[in-house]
């Protein structure tokens, strides 16, 4: 198999991971980490499946997915920004809430064929996820006044507050952006990647991998898109593994093992070069 074919196969998964991770980039640049991404993506996937099957329209599916992801993000905002609960526990609890509620919602669309995303709209989302949005986000975050405000919220809270940055509003905005991008990713996952068929547990792991891609892409939208694409290439190598003697169950773990190694190398490089991501996110 040649490289072009591999990249071509990698694009669908990379689209999902890149959209999800780009949303998280905004939030982490604004100084918060949402560990609940896995659950939010899952509930978005199930909500879009349920609504698409019963309304027969992908727009309704997108809307319902957006409602689901937004309400999860709102819980995160209320608990973390207003009540100052530790963001780690809120995120982890949202993982379980999202998966459990997602299964409860999705199970009634099990075995029913939903509408599928047309190739042209899928292509549009792919270009958006891997090209347009990363570049636009990079310009927005690094070259505009609004981006400076967002990034300042992720560096030094006190200084940002003295300079008049409305921290809570900035983070709410970032959470809303994240919800929108995750709902797009979940719709694409449901209606294109899994061809309009809901199955329990299908997107499990993708949310966690997206969180990893944020680190590998160095909190930089373009870097995130590139690392998502590389992860996609890794996944498209997955079917070739049994042929060279790796058992199926072990092959399942190969992407995770590669991501661990990549994270180790990347973190080591970041540390050696003294190149530093958002201060509130990087605890060393």
């Amino acid at each position, binding site marked *: 198999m040649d490289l072009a074919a591999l990249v071509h196969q990698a694009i669908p998964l990379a689209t999902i991971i890149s959209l999800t991770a780009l949303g998280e980039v905004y939030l982490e640049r604004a100084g918060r980490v949402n560990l609940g991404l896995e659950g939010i993506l899952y509930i978005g996937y199930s909500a879009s499946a349920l609504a698409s099957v019963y309304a027969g329209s992908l727009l309704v599916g997108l809307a319902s997915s957006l409602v689901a992801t937004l309400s999860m993000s709102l819980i995160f905002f209320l608990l973390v920004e207003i009540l100052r609960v530790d963001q780690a526990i809120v995120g982890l609890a949202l993982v*379980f809430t999202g998966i*459990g509620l997602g299964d409860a919602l999705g199970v009634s669309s099990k075995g029913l064929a939903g509408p599928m995303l047309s190739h042209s709209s899928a292509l549009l989302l792919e270009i958006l996820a891997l090209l347009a949005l990363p570049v636009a986000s990079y310009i927005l975050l690094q070259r505009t006044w609004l981006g400076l405000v967002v990034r300042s919220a992720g560096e030094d809270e006190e200084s940002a507050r003295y300079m008049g940055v409305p921290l809570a509003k900035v983070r709410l905005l970032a959470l809303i952006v994240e919800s929108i991008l995750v709902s797009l990713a979940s719709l694409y996952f449901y209606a294109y990647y899994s061809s309009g068929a809901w199955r329990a547990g299908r997107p499990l792991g993708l949310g966690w991998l997206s969180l990893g891609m944020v680190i590998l892409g160095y909190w930089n939208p373009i870097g995130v898109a590139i690392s998502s694409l590389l992860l996609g290439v890794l996944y498209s190598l997955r079917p070739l593994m049994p042929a060279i003697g790796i058992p199926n169950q072990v092959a399942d773990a190969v992407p995770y093992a590669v991501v661990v190694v990549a994270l180790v190398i990347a973190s080591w490089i970041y540390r050696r070069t003294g190149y530093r991501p958002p201060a509130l996110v990087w605890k060393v």
Partner: protein
Amino acid sequence: MAAIKLVERAPMERGNPLLYGAAGLVAGIVIAVAIGALTPAGISGTLHAFVKVFSSPSFLALSLPYFTAISLSGVGLALAYRASFITIGAEGQLILGMITGFWLLYYMLPGLGRISLLVGSAISVLVGSVYGLLVGLLRVYLGVNETLVSLMLNYIALSVLNYLVSGPWSVGGFTKTDVLPAGVVVSSLTASLVALIVLVALEVLYRYTRLGVAIDSIGLARKMAMTYGINYARVILKVSFLSGGVAGLAGFLYLVSGAQRLYSTSYGPGYGYIGILAAWLAGLRPLGVIASSMLLGLLYVMNTSLQLSGVLPSFVQAMQAVIVLSVTAFVALSRYRIVVS
């Protein structure tokens, strides 16, 4: 328009977190039962399963193996979280504890009875510790994000389990192993008593040793702790080693008292993940984990009756998470006064 504002109270004016936590528990249970409306069981079915689990002592006995696994995973995580070491690796360490235990008891030391239990538990603890220490080493020396690495290590442990039960250790073409010999099976009561002893020992460690103070101080004010001569790297390494070890023990005890064989599931056993919830529900106190794990273990038993009405097992975990979220939100609320202006 009336505006609702939260005003932070002075430390002496704060509400009693226990009372607020109890209110949060009640509210959480109400919400958890209410979201049962989304499932095929409906609110009434969920409520029925809930009441049934809490009304009969026989369910308490049924929940003991889960209590053992959840409490031991949770207590290690509680100490780790106190040091701001957000690992979620208990699941993988628990799986490795189960695998090691089975390998030793079934293949390596058959017919030794009680002695093999001692040897098996010691080695399972060691394997869990080393797997936990790996995360700590990467965190301390290379600055790798511990949450993600521990999660990925969980997936790797799970795939090892799935490989073993479907390949080399599989019996009769099913994705499960043979049952452990009767000589090494322990009653669930004994196993949970062992867990209790470990929990009390860790409470003592947390309250009365230098390590306990160091763990707290690192979590609360790391720079100050380091200024006062606490070695950050060493504390994190100790905590990761310790939490991995108890999670390994959790897997071993669950194997000999509950599961008695290894089998494959796509989600994995999951007790290491419930341990995360147990740790936070207990307010990160080792002794509190006893109460929180009993509650979460009992809720876990609901799975058996809910599954009959077509509810997936993940739903009970969502109920547990909702209860934990509600309790932590209410406890946080005790620090504020609600002002309507």
